[in-house]
C-alpha cells in the first residue's frame, strides 16, 4: 500500500489547469503546424497561421489560448494499492481547480445551478471521472472543455441494423451540424457501444488520446482514418470559412454493448483540445 497525501493532488491539479490553458500538448502543436502546410484555402491558411501566432502569444505572455478556459474535466486513474491521506480526494481535486483558475487568471465559467445560473466564481465543481486500475500510481488527466464545441456534441442511440454505415452517418451529422460553431479544425471523439452514458464518457476520453495515435483495433483504426478523410471533404474548413482542414483527428473508443443497441457518442472539441497528463 502506497500513501499519497491529497495535498500533492491539489498542487498537481492546480498546475495542470494553468498549464493546459496556456500550452497545448505536443501532439496538438504538431497537428496544428502540419495543417498550415496542407490547407488548400488561402483564407483557411491565413486563419491557421493566426492560430499559430495565437499559441505563441499564449505561451509567451501567459494569456489563455482561448477565453473559454472551460469546465475542468478530470480523469483520475487510481491504482488500487494507493491509499489517500490528509483529506478526501474529491475536495482536493476541486481545491486544485479553485486555486488553478483563481491564481492562473482563468475564466470562471461555471454556474451553481443549471436554471438559476449563479456563477460559482471559482470554476468549481470539476467534472471528475474515476477509474480503479491495478498498481500503486495515480494518473491525472486535466482536460478543460470549452462549450462552443461541447454544445455541438451528440448521443445517437442507433439500432444494431444501422451498423457501421449508421455510425459513419451519425459522426458526419454531428460534424456538419457543428460547422463553424465548434471552432474548427476540430478533434472528434467518438464512443461506440456500452450504454447511453458509457458512450458519452468514452467519446470524452477519446479526446484525451494523442491525435497522432490510432486505435489498436484494426477495423477501428480504419474507421478513424476513413472518417477523418470524409470530414475533411465537407468543405467546412478552418473557422468554418471553407477549406480542407475541418478536423485534425477522429479518435474512437469502443466497448461491449447490449444485443438490442448500438449507442454512439460524438464529443466534438475545437482546435484548443487541451489535455495535460501526469502520473504521481
Amino acid at each position, binding site marked *: 500500500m502506497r500513501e499519497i497525501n491529497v495535498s500533492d493532488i491539489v498542487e498537481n491539479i492546480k498546475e495542470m489547469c494553468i498549464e493546459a490553458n496556456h500550452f497545448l500538448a505536443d501532439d496538438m502543436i504538431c497537428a496544428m503546424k502540419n495543417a498550415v502546410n496542407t490547407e488548400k484555402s488561402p483564407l483557411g491558411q491565413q486563419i491557421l497561421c493566426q492560430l499559430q501566432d495565437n499559441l505563441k502569444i499564449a505561451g509567451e505572455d501567459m*494569456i489563455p489560448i*482561448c*477565453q473559454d478556459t472551460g469546465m475542468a474535466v478530470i480523469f483520475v486513474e487510481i491504482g488500487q494499492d494507493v491509499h489517500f491521506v490528509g483529506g478526501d480526494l474529491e475536495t482536493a481535486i476541486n481545491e486544485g481547480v479553485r486555486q488553478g483558475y483563481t491564481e492562473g487568471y482563468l*475564466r470562471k465559467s461555471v454556474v451553481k445551478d443549471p436554471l438559476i445560473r449563479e456563477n460559482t466564481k471559482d470554476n468549481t465543481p470539476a467534472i471528475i471521472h474515476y477509474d480503479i486500475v491495478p498498481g500503486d500510481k495515480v494518473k491525472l488527466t486535466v482536460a478543460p472543455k470549452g462549450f462552443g464545441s461541447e454544445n455541438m456534441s451528440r448521443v445517437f442511440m442507433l439500432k444494431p441494423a444501422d451498423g457501421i454505415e449508421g455510425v459513419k452517418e451519425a459522426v458526419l451529422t454531428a460534424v456538419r451540424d457543428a460547422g463553424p460553431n465548434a471552432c474548427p479544425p476540430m478533434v472528434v471523439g467518438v464512443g461506440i457501444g456500452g450504454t447511453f452514458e458509457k458512450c458519452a464518457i468514452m467519446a470524452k476520453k477519446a479526446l484525451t488520446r494523442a491525435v497522432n495515435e490510432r486505435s489498436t483495433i484494426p477495423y477501428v483504426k480504419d474507421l478513424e482514418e476513413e472518417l477523418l478523410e470524409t470530414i475533411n471533404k465537407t468543405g467546412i474548413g478552418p*473557422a468554418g470559412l471553407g477549406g480542407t482542414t475541418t478536423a485534425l483527428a477522429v479518435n474512437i473508443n469502443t466497448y461491449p454493448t447490449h444485443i438490442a443497441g448500438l449507442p454512439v457518442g460524438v464529443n466534438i472539441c475545437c482546435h484548443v483540445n487541451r489535455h495535460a497528463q501526469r502520473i504521481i
Partner: protein
Amino acid sequence: MEQYIQAPISASDAKKLKAGEYVYITGTIYTARDAAHKRMYEALEKGEKLPIDIKDNIIYYMGPSPARENRPIGSAGPTTSSRMDKYAPALMDLGLIGMIGKGKRSAAVKEAIVRNGAVYFAAVGGAGALLSKAIKSSEVIAYDDLGTEAIRKLEVEKFPVIVVIDSKGNDLYETAVEEYCKL
C-alpha cells in the same frame, strides 16, 4: 480584399462591406453575451432604456478571461453567436449595426441584418490570446454583477474580423463551404 473601418460605423459604411472581406476595426465597440442580452431584452420588454446607446454600434459576443496586472484584458475571443439569435433582431431594429461572434445565425437574424443594413462579422474562434492584443482598453459600463458577462466598452486597434453576412444577406459560411465541399 482588406478594409480598415472606424467604429461606430454609419449605415452607409456598413452597406459597403461584402461577405468574405477581411476587415480591421479601430475605435469603440461593446461586449455582451448571453446574460447581458437576456437582461437588455427584458429591459426593452418592460419599456426601460438600454444601458448603452446601441445606434451605429458594434456588439462583440465575448466574455474575457481576467486581465493580468497592467494589461487591459485577458484572453478575448468570440463566443458562439447563435445563442444571441433570440435577442439580436430587436437590437438591430433599434440601430445596432454590427455584431462580432462566430458561427451560424438564424433566418430571423439574417432578415434583420438585411432589413437594417447591418453586418455580421466573425472573429477567429479560439484565438483569444491573439485577439486580446488588438484591445487597448476595457471598461465595465453595465451589469457589473455578471462578471465576465458584464457589458464592456472596448477601445480596439486594427481588430481583425471577416465579414460573414453582409447587408444584402450573403452568407460566407454557405458560399465558402460549398466551394470546398467534395462530397
